[in-house]
C-alpha cells in the first residue's frame, strides 16, 4: 500500500519545484497586479494598502494629459502598423526564400533573423541615431532626393511612423521564422499542381499557398499583434513616449504611472486592461484556429 501511494505521489514530488517557480514568477505577479489594481498602493506603500474598489480604473479612463483615449489611439495605430508591416515584410521574405535552394535559404534566413535576436533597447537607440535630424542616416539618405532634413521624432505623425518602422525591423523576424516553417510543410505537389493548372505565381500564392498555411499565418499575426501591443523598451529608448505624450502607448503609460509617478494602483489598473485585451485577442485566435482545423481534417 505504501509503495502504491508513493508511486502515485512521485509525479507530484517531481513537479513541486517547477510548479513553485511558475507560481512565484508568473502566477503570483499576475495575482498581485489584479489585487493592486483595486488598492491605493504606491511605490512607498505596498503593504497595508487601502481598498479603493474600481477607483483606479475610473481615474485611468478619465485621465487628462494624456487622455486615455489618445493613449489607446496611439497604441492602436502603432500596433496596427507593426502588425501589417511585420506580416508583409516577414511573409514576403519567407515567400522569396521559399523559392531559393535549401542551402541558400538557411544561410539567408540566419541573416534576416539578426534584428530579431538583438535586444530591443539596442535597436531603439540605433534607430534613434538613424533618425537624428543632424547626423542621422535617414536624413542623409533622403538628401540626394532633395528632401529637406526632417525632425523625425519631434512630430507626432513622423514619430509614430518612425517607431513603427523600427519596430517592424525589430519584430518581422518571428513572422519570417514561423511562416518559413509553415511554407516548408506545404506539400510541394500542390504548388506544382497549381502550375499545371495554369495559375500564375501570384494566383498560386493567393489561392494555394497562403490558404494552406492559414492557421500558422494567423498565429504569426497574433504574435505580431500582441508584441506590438506590449512594446515598451523600443519606444522608451527612442522617444520615452514624447514629445508631450505624443507617442505614449498603453505599455508606456503603465510604466509611467507605476515607476515614475509611483502610483502602483493605477499602473496595475492599466496592466489589467492591457492583459485583458491581449487575452481576448488570444482567445479569439484559438476559436478561429479551431474552426479552421475542423474544416481541414
Amino acid at each position: 500500500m505504501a509503495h502504491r501511494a508513493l508511486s502515485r505521489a512521485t509525479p507530484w514530488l517531481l513537479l513541486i519545484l517547477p510548479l513553485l517557480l511558475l507560481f512565484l514568477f508568473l502566477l503570483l505577479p499576475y495575482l498581485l497586479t489584479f489585487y493592486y489594481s483595486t488598492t491605493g498602493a504606491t511605490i512607498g506603500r505596498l503593504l497595508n494598502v487601502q481598498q479603493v474598489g474600481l477607483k483606479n480604473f475610473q481615474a485611468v479612463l478619465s485621465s487628462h494629459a494624456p487622455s486615455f483615449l489618445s493613449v489607446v489611439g496611439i497604441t492602436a495605430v502603432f500596433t496596427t502598423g507593426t502588425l501589417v508591416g511585420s506580416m508583409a515584410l516577414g511573409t514576403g521574405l519567407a515567400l522569396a526564400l521559399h523559392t531559393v535552394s535549401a542551402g541558400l535559404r538557411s544561410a539567408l534566413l540566419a541573416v534576416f533573423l539578426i534584428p530579431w535576436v538583438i535586444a530591443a533597447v539596442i535597436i531603439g537607440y540605433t534607430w534613434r541615431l538613424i533618425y537624428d535630424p543632424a547626423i542621422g542616416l535617414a536624413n542623409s539618405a533622403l538628401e540626394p532626393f532633395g528632401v529637406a532634413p526632417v525632425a523625425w521624432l519631434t512630430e507626432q505623425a513622423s514619430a509614430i511612423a518612425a517607431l513603427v518602422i523600427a519596430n517592424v525591423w525589430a519584430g518581422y523576424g518571428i513572422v519570417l521564422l514561423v511562416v518559413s516553417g509553415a511554407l516548408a510543410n506545404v506539400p510541394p505537389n500542390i504548388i506544382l499542381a497549381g502550375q499545371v493548372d495554369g495559375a500564375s505565381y501570384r494566383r498560386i500564392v493567393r489561392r494555394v499557398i497562403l490558404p494552406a498555411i492559414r492557421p500558422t499565418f494567423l498565429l504569426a499575426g497574433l504574435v505580431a499583434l500582441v508584441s506590438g501591443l506590449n512594446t515598451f523598451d523600443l519606444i522608451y529608448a527612442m522617444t520615452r513616449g514624447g514629445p508631450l505624450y505624443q507617442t505614449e502607448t498603453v505599455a508606456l503609460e503603465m510604466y509611467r504611472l507605476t515607476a515614475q509617478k509611483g502610483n502602483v494602483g493605477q499602473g496595475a489598473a492599466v496592466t489589467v486592461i492591457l492583459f485583458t485585451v491581449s487575452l481576448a485577442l488570444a482567445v479569439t485566435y484559438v476559436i478561429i484556429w479551431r474552426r479552421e482545423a475542423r474544416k481541414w481534417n
Partner: protein
Amino acid sequence: MKLDIEGLTVEYGQVAAVRGLNLTVGHGELVALVGPSGCGKTTTLGFITGFIRPKSGRVRFDGLDVTDLPPQRRGIGYVFQDYAIYPHMTVRENIRFPLDAAKVDRKKAERDVDEIAGLMGVGNLLARRPHQLSGGQRQRVALARALVKKPVVLLLDEPLSNLDAHLRVEVRAEIRRLQLDLKMTTVFVTHDQAEAMAIADRVAVMNNGDIVALTSPSTLYSRPPSLFAAQFIGSPQINIWATDGPDEALARRVIAPLVGDGGAGLLAGVRPEHVMVGAGDIKATTTLTEPLGRDFLVHLEVGPSSIRSLVPAAQGALLKTGEVVPIAMERSHLLLFDAATGHRVEIDEAGTRREDDTRETDGGLAG
C-alpha cells in the same frame, strides 16, 4: 495529339537521371513508363510538364516545340501520386481551379465542372472537402481536375499506388476506358509491371535513365527485347540459366535443340508457366510448393540449378517436397539472350544468330 521527346538528358549534379531518351506517343495512345525506382520515369514526366530543366533534349506537342514554355502554358493534365488536391478547397473549387486560372466565364466553368464530375462519378461530392473523401474518391477528383480543362496530353504519375489492391484494379479499368473514350494521348508512370501491361497500348521499360524496351504488352512478355525487360516483366520471374557458370549443364541441355553444341555466351530463359512438370527427360527434385490460388509455384532443383515452375493447382497440390519428377521446357517458348549485351537473340535454321532490335525499329503506333 502526338507527343515527341528527343534526346532527353537530365542531370542532378554529377548524376545523370535520364540519358538521351527518345519517345514518341501517338495520338490517343497510352504508353506506360515502367521501371525500378530511380530509373528516371518520373523525371521524364517532369520534363514533359516543364517542372524539370533538362541538360539537353526537346519536347514537341504535335510538332510544336514546347521545351521553353512554363508548365502553365503547356495545357497538360497531370495526376500526382498523392493526388495533390488543394486541401482547403471544396471538390467543386478544386475541379474549377484550372478553369478559374484560365479566366473561363463562371457559368460555363460551373457547367464544365458538373459535366466532368458526373463523368468521373463525383457529382454528389462537389460540396465536400478533401479530408472527407476516401482514397478512391480523391483519385477521381484529381482526374476530374486534370481533365476539366481538356488537356492536350494526360500524364499520370503512379496514380494507383495509394489505393488498396481491389480498388486499384477497378480504377485502372476506369482510367483505361475513359482514356479510350476521350482518345486522350496519355503517359502513365508506374513501378508495377502488371499494371503497365494491363493498361498500356505500349510499354516502355526504363532502366538507368533510358528506355530499354518499348513495345506492346504481349510482345514484351513473349518476345522481350532484352534480358532486363524479360526479368522485369512477369511474375513469378522468368528462369534464366547461363551457359557459363554453375548452371552450364542445365542451360546447355535446354538450348541444345536450338543450337546443338554451339551455345557459348548465351543465356537460356524460360517463363515458369512453360516449365512442364510430369513428363520429359529432365529429372528434377521438388524443394518447395507454394499455392497461389489458381496455380501452384513449384521450386525445383536439377543439380546446382534451381527452376521455378507454374503448374495448375490440381496438379501442384499432389506434389510433395523431395519428390523427383520429370520436367520439360516448351521449345517454342524458349528465349535466348546474349550474355554480353543482354539482347535477345534469335537463331534461324542455318544456325545464324540475330539480335532483337525491337527498341530501334518499333516507332510510334497510331492508337
